[in-house]
């Protein structure tokens, strides 16, 4: 694609990408660095971007790969491992059903729980629930098959629900 069209096509994604970057890094200045790097890389590689393919997925992919190689990204990967988490059982929650329902819809508790999720699960929840990307787009961004997207997403939701409904259990787990 002609780089002349880049601004016109990529700037509408600016806010979304920034939000995603901020959630990933948890910090404004890191998020700005990440978004800036993403736009610079995308502009540089825009000639190889084919018209008709998914620009949104392409940009998220660049951002995500930049994040993984950044300082905060590398740190996040060290503290979370998909394989270790995968086999852990979930503790039963001990709150009343009414309180649980309230917690699940309370933004503060959801945000806390989301921030506490291991990076890979936080990432896929953000891509699916917040950025509303399709399974196919997520598969492109994460470089994994759609089947892996589905299973990782299911696992992430389970962990998130557990973290929301039973913050104490989460504290204990860590």
């Amino acid at each position, binding site marked *: 694609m*002609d*780089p*002349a069209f*880049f*601004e016109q096509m*990529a*700037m509408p994604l*600016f*806010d979304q990408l*920034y*939000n995603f970057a*901020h*959630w990933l890094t948890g910090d*404004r200045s890191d*998020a*700005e660095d990440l*978004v*800036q790097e993403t*736009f*610079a890389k995308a*502009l540089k590689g825009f000639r190889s971007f084919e018209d008709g393919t998914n620009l949104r997925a392409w940009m998220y992919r660049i951002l995500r790969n930049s994040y993984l190689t950044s300082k905060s990204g590398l740190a996040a990967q060290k503290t979370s491992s998909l394989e270790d988490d995968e086999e852990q059982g979930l503790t039963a929650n001990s709150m009343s059903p009414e309180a649980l*329902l309230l917690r*699940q*819809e*309370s*933004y503060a*508790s*959801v*945000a806390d729980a*989301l921030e506490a999720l291991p990076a890979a699960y936080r990432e896929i*929840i*953000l891509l*699916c*629930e*917040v950025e509303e990307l*399709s*399974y196919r787009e997520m598969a492109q961004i994460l470089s994994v098959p759609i089947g892996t997207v*589905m*299973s990782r*997403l*299911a696992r992430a*939701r389970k962990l*998130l*629900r557990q973290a*929301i409904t039973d913050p104490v259990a989460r504290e204990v787990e860590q």
Partner: protein
Amino acid sequence: MTCQQDHLTLAAYMDGELTPERAATLERHLQGCAGCSAEIAGLARMRRGLSAAKGRYAPSDEFRRKVQSQIAVKKARPNVMRFWSPAIALAAAILLCVVWLRSSNRTDALSEVADLHVTALASANPVDVVSTDRHTVKPWFQGKIPFSFNVPEFGGTEFSLLGGRLIYLHQQPGAQLIVAMRQHKISVLILQDSAQLARSLPRSNAVQQLAFNISTWPSHQLRFFVVGDAEPAEVEKLAELMERANP
């Protein structure tokens, strides 16, 4: 009754990833399955809880302008090129056409001259007047062409006159002399010079056309061509003889 639906299908339904047919099938199932309905409700609740995470973090205007100017500055140059390159290409194409037309015009008289030479040699009767005598050949053209020219004395040179014939070039009648030089046959063409003929000739006097060496020059409203497969120097020599005879 045990529910056959797996969690991934329920999630895919919530995420809008099922085909319309599969979604319709699942919806029918949900009407009768409390377990699956509860799971869908749980996913929906989580989605509502997460909805506030959308746009939770907004970039500052300052940062937006910074990134925008970065990608805009780099955009400026290719943008200019994008506008200019078709214009340049078009101009180049027009220029090429003009040059080509001019050069093809400049050589088309020569290719006809070469054709006349080849036609004469290929003919069973290459000459209309067969004579080695210039005093026979010259008068033969009288009344056939609207001009007169001198045939040089070939005695003592490597050239010998074979004869002459009437030709037409650009609808103008002219004379063709066939001159032999060892095994080579060289044509001398004499025509009335015209602006049209001059325009369709190259600027250079000695040129090659279809591997023939051609020498051409104007002289007193006449236009001379010497064309043959002999060496350029030999063609030039015959041209000089003709030029001297028609000063």
